[in-house]
Structure formats: C-alpha cells, structure tokens
C-alpha cells in the first residue's frame, strides 16, 4: 500500500522480491545496496540464520529521486524461500505495491520455481490481491551457470501473462537494475491510474 505524505512531500512504495530458496533474492538487494549512493539508501537489514539463509526478511530502503516535487522512496523486501517459512512470506506480502519474481534458471530448479509462483498466487489471493492486477516483473537469474534452461522454456513455464522479464546474474549485477527499474515504473504507473 503506497503511502503519500503531503507533509513530507514523499511517496513510499513497497516492493517484494519473491522466489524459491537460494534463487538470488538477497543477492539482488545486496548488489543494489552496493551500487547505490550513500545518500540515496538506508541501512540494509537482513534477518538471517547463522548460515546466511533469510529467516524473516531483508529490507533495503531506497530513494529514487523526485517526481512533481515528491520524493519517491521504495522499500525493498525479500522473503525467505524455504517452503516451511510460508507464514513469514504471507506477512511480508501485506501491503505490497509490486512484486519481483526471481527465478533460478538451473534446470533442476524448475519445479521449485513453479511451486514458488503458485505459492505467490495463493498467498496474494489470501489477502485479496490478484497477481494479474499488481505490478509484477520476472528475473531469470543465474544465467552464468552451465545447466540452465533456455529463456524460452522459462518464459513458457513461468511467464504466461507476458509481464516484463529479464535475464540476470545477480552475483555480478547483470539485469539487477533493469529489473528494479521495470517494477518501479509499473508501481508509479499504477499510482497514476488510481487516486486515493
């Protein structure tokens, strides 16, 4: 749920990075964090286990610049990917303005990707959202690895709605900002459509 603050003249939006465990969600945020000017970002928070698996969420606040005199602020969140953290995923989706689905391109992760998309749909629906109705983009990550599915295959399985999609290598940053820009753009476009 975007938050327009007329007093501070800023608008806040929430973007959630979703996807199966180890697909690269946290890595996306880390890359964005590393490559953003200090004055445009807040602290990145990772609630992780001792082995660096996301336990609850990662959080990164970003300021993108001004539109019509309003500062645009984006709060990026990731969810924990493991199946058993479903309760936490639901909580993080509350009030979401846009979703990035990070897919793991490796052939043996295809099923995990498909399960995760289904889970995303279910969890959104539980809160009265429809995936078709919210700003949504997809990143096919880990394109640098050898045993990966082709983009056509990934598209066919994971992108039936034909939303904007990108190839990524989050570890080196390929596609990371393109993905973020695409979802931010959709979120802002959505704001134009609906007044409060």
């Amino acid at each position, binding site marked *: 749920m975007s938050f327009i603050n*007329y007093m501070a003249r800023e608008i806040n939006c929430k973007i959630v990075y979703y996807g199966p465990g180890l697909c690269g969600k946290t890595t996306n945020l880390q890359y964005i964090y590393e490559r953003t000017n200090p004055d445009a970002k807040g602290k990145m928070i990772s609630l992780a286990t001792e082995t660096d698996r996301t336990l609850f969420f990662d959080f990164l606040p970003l300021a993108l610049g001004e539109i019509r005199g309003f500062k645009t602020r984006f709060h990026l969140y990731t969810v924990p990917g493991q199946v058993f953290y479903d309760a936490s995923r639901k909580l993080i989706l509350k009030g979401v303005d846009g979703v990035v689905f990070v897919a793991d391109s490796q052939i043996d992760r295809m099923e995990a990707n498909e399960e995760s998309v289904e889970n995303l749909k279910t969890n959104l629906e539980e809160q009265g959202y429809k995936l078709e109705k919210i700003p949504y983009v997809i990143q096919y990550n880990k394109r640098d690895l050898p045993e990966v599915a082709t983009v056509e295959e990934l598209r066919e399985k994971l992108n039936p709605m034909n939303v904007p999609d990108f190839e990524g290598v989050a570890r080196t940053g390929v596609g990371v900002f393109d993905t973020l820009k695409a979802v931010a753009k959709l979120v802002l476009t959505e704001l134009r459509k609906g007044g409060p």
Partner: protein
Amino acid sequence: MVNPQMVMYEEEFNQIQNVVDRLVKDANAKVVFIVDKNGQLIAASGDVDNLDTTSLASLTAGNIAATGGMAKLLKENEFATQFHEGEKANIHIQLVGNRVILVVIFDSKSSLGLVRLRVRRASEELNNIFEALLKKVADPGADSPFAEITDEDIDNLFND
C-alpha cells in the same frame, strides 16, 4: 487500484506530531515514533538524530506482523501491546486502532507504569485522528498529485 493508499495531510500530520511531541515529555521518553503496519514511518519525536528510524520502523512492523500471526494461531484477536526490556533502553510497542503502531523508547529516567499510562491517552487521541484521516482519504474529492504524471516523469527518475 488494488490497494487503498495511505495518505498523510498537513493538518493531520501536525495533530499527530503534537501528540508524539507531548508523549515524549509526559512519559519522560527518549524517543517516540509512529509507524504504519507496512513499516513506513509516519512521525517521530525526541532524540531521533542518532537513530536509524527507517530501519526501526520496518523492524517494528515486522515484529507486529509476526506477533499478529502468532495471535491468529492462538485464536487471539491481536497482541496489542509489547514490551522489551534492555539493560539501558526499553521499548514499548502499542498497536493503535489496528492501523498504526506507537513505539516508545525510554530509559531509567522513566518507568513502564508511567509509559503505559501516557500511551493509553495518546492512543485514544491518535485513534481519533487516524479515523478522521481515513474518512478524508476515502473522499473521492481528494486529488492525487500522481494522476497527471507522464511516462517522461517516470523515465527521468532513472536517468542517472
């Protein structure tokens, strides 16, 4: 629009700011802030300069969301109050009208009893303000400054 927007206007913001400013004094608190349930900071007062309020806001909302999830499993409505006691700092978290979260950080200059008492009054005031705000937002007469933005405006954001 899928999501109803949260909107803050100058009038209500000033009212809210008054309540938090007063609460800092009345409760002898170090810091008071208000967060919406999605983790966005609405107002803050007290010794906030050395505090990462954005991070605190997000973590507070995560915390309330998690306890809310626990409440649901226990068939409780909501755990409206939380208190965390540290060696130097204590933190009191209060859900107000199931909409926003009021956070008070205090040290040994205050006490839990005093904070509780003052929070109760502030909560009532805040609840009234947010109710009025919601009515205003629901009024379709309120224009969004974003209704007129162009693709160009959006593209310009990314041009650096």
